[in-house]
């Protein structure tokens, strides 16, 4: 599904190149559940962003479902991102002004789905994640764990093929974190490809494969 070849990413600091990613080669199959691990500054998030099309490498090739992503025009890339990827953040990034229902609905609006279709999908999501009773609440009225569940529901509403999660449990306590991880595992069992960045060994164990980064290189 994803193939990375010789991916380099660097910053020029005072004339010398400071590498964030150094010759990354990676293959990810459909249905995989990957945990990217490594100490702070090892390039975990940058790698996730490159995979998520939010950041561009300075060198290398990136094939997503056989397509050379880096050769695509920005508009095409955005379309690709929209239709195939869902993003989950450490700090949830829900829109404070919108209710749970509306937050989940937003990506569907941007996909230009009709009101009827949106209603069906959002209803389905609320049902699936057990948050029907909370649909009219605002993010500020929810606990961190609940907010993250909404964040995941929102990411999945547009039915992506790939779920990217940047420390999804980083702001949660251990019990809430466990719940989210259970949820991920369940999603993976249902066929969802997941890539997560995490600090925690325990969370990494939920995945099928661990990629260990150190100083921008796979160990």
């Amino acid at each position: 599904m994803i193939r990375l070849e010789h991916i380099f990413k660097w910053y020029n600091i005072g004339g010398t190149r400071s590498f964030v990613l150094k010759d990354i080669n990676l293959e990810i199959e459909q249905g995989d559940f990957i945990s990217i691990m490594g100490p702070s500054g090892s390039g975990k998030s940058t790698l996730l962003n490159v995979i998520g099309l939010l950041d561009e490498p300075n060198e290398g090739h990136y094939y997503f479902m056989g397509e050379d992503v880096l050769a695509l025009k920005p508009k095409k890339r955005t379309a690709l991102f929209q239709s195939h990827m869902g993003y989950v953040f450490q700090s949830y990034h829900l829109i404070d002004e919108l209710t749970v229902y509306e937050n989940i609905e937003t990506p569907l609006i941007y996909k230009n789905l009709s009101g009827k279709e949106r209603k069906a999908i959002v209803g389905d999501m609320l049902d699936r994640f057990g948050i029907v009773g909370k649909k009219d609440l605002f993010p500020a009225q929810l606990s961190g764990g609940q907010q993250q569940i909404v964040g995941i529901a929102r990411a999945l509403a547009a039915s992506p093929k790939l779920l990217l999660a940047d420390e999804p449990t980083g702001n949660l306590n251990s019990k809430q974190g466990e719940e989210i991880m259970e949820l991920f595992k369940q999603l993976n069992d249902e066929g969802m490809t997941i890539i997560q960045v995490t600090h925690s060994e325990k969370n990494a164990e939920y995945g099928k494969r661990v990629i260990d980064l150190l100083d921008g290189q796979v160990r």
Partner: protein
Amino acid sequence: MIKNYFKIAFRNLAKNRMFSMLNIIGLSFGLAGFMFIATYVFDELSYDRFHTKAERIVRLNAHIHMGESKLDMARTSDMMGPILRDEYTDVEDFVRLYTSAGAKLIKNGDRWIKEVRVAHTDSSFFDLFTYQALHGDLRRALTAPNTVVLTRSAAERYFNTTDVVGKTLETNDAGNTIYQITAVIDDMPRNGHFNYDFLFAMENASYESWGSLLSHNFTTYILLRNATDRSLLENHLEEYVHKHCLPAAKQFMDIASMEEFRTQGNVFYYDVTPIKDIHLRSNLMGELQPNGSLQYVYIFGAISLFILLIACVNFVNLSTARSASRAKDVGVHKLLGSSRGGVAGQFLTESLLLSFGGVMVAIGIVLLALPLFNELSGKAFKAYDLINVRSLPLIGFLTLFVGLVAGYYPAAYLSAFSPLQVIKSRSVIASGKSFFRSSLVVFQFAISITLIVGTFIITTQLQYIQHKKLGYERENILLISDYHALGNQAKTFRDEVLSIPGIKMGTVSGYLPVSSSSRNDNPYSKETVMSAHNSVSMQTWHVDEQYLPTFELELTAGRNFSSARIADSTAVILNQTAVNHFDFGSEKEAIGKKIHFQLGSNMRSFDVIGVVKDFNFDSLRDPVTPLGFFLGNHPVEAAFKIEAADLPALLTRIENSWNTLAPGYAFSYRFMDEAFDAMYRAERRMSRLSLAFAVLATGIACLGLFGLAAFMAEQRSKEIGVRKVLGSSVIGIVIMLCTDFIKLVLIALLIAVPIAWWGMSKWLEDFTYRIEVSWWIFALTGIISILIALLTVSTQAIRAARTNPVNSLRNE
């Protein structure tokens, strides 16, 4: 999608209440100011456009400059209109207005009422001008002598009904004249350059020089066959001067030809003003009403636009300052699939909502502040003049315009954030300082400071006028109007008033040292034969021997009139300027000299018996001109010098003796200093308006500054926390936060000072007697604006500086 925009915008505005309030308040005041001024400007531009033939109507003006005398007047002789119509086919018709007699007394029951909105006019009046008839046939209304046309309000005042055709009105014309009412029209629109309640037949005008081609006492309008004939008409006017005026002038002046007359530096020609231009582009002698000024229309228009811009700038500044907190939303929306346009649409929706709120509040302010605005502008607008079917689309357009102008930059700026910025950093996008935002603040304050300087200078000039020694006494002088109503009882009345204790002195004359009183300009010469180069155009004032002592005018040479000397009836007292113009040498030498005046074929000579020190008998805008006092009877007004503790009782006694001696005539009086103040009404209006503008502009700019300071303090809370932990004092932090803003105000000051200095110097040039623009005005303005800015910013700064650093640092 749109629904979603509105939903998010609404909740966003509700959440950031301070931001929304600051914006709506700022915008609404800016908009209210703009609406007022726009109404004022549109009104000024609409003058005389209601006449259906306005395109073809022009007014004739005369320009006669001889020696020192320069007459540019909106008047012609009575003959000019008829001659032009008879001799030139492109002149379709003419109409004259005769108003020189001023007021008329009209009998209502057994009281005589003084009516000032009166004029005599030709029967063609309603052919040229468009007025709505209520009763009667306008085309035939003024064809016969002793006829009058009334307006609705005049008819209601006298008869309590408008259906009064056939009834009569009694006036004091020629002793006593009864007019028959032949038609009633609706009140003349406010936006006309003349406005009368009574139009009398021209035949009844009490005019002595009918047929005199060189006496200019009529306002004449010409109806052209074609609007394009105007240049043709100018040729006719030149021909008219040669054919008619020159022969008439030769009768009493040593003048060979027009060419010779002109090569001697003299001017004599006629031109025209299109009727639609009269209100804003004409300011000649003998205008029927004080006209407006195109210059002020431009200035006010520009200022109101600037105030609106200041309000828009607030929005831009507050929105971009908040960008850090909005960046997250932008990033998330983009991650969820929104395009840049979609995000921009979201922000524009917000600014449109704010602008809509601003407009609604502005309409409320406009309705509440209408009386205040009328007082400031001297107009009489009603609510429906501002908010009506015609203005609603404009208001809608304004909402859109302001929303887009204010929202454009924030939308463009904020929508450009890339989602990565959100993911990477924890939304720490530097938005504390920005060159763009700083320039906008400088722009706002530069305008405010310019307006404050303007206000100061106008006020100082007014103070100067108020306190300048004018060379005559104007305190405690009581003026009694309509003195001619006393008829042959005038002397009795005077003696009676003078016998009242508290009245020190009194004089009877209509020629007073305020410009609203009588004026009479005539040519005099030192030699017995007058020519263009020895004539001195001089005010001819008929006064009694009490005039000089009553106004405490100072004689620098010679003596005052004396009733005991019969020869004083051919004596004259000159002012110093007149002595200079006649070239008599010193004031002492002037005594005993003669000056001559040609009246038709008669020549009259006068002995100079005294010289008075120059005094400002007209507005301080104008220099003192030659003036001569002649002993004579001019019972128009009387001036009494009073010195009484109990003014009401004194007035009652004077009124009682008036009522016995002039029964049926209203007793009307005013005080000299009121009449003096009336000369500077326009300046005082200017001063109040500029004050209002300055307060508005500064207030709105401060609202923005307040918001900016609040966000800045919030943004820098972490920095402030760190500094405090490192040992900075509260004062140190307050100074640090304020300095940034004060710097901006100082830059604004640097920009505004030259602009204000230039503009106000221009304004002051209108005054012959004026203050110097001195440095302290700018210094004071600088201090005031810095104080205002400090006051605005420091509350926020102090609050931020006093928060416990633990709170701000814990957030991480």
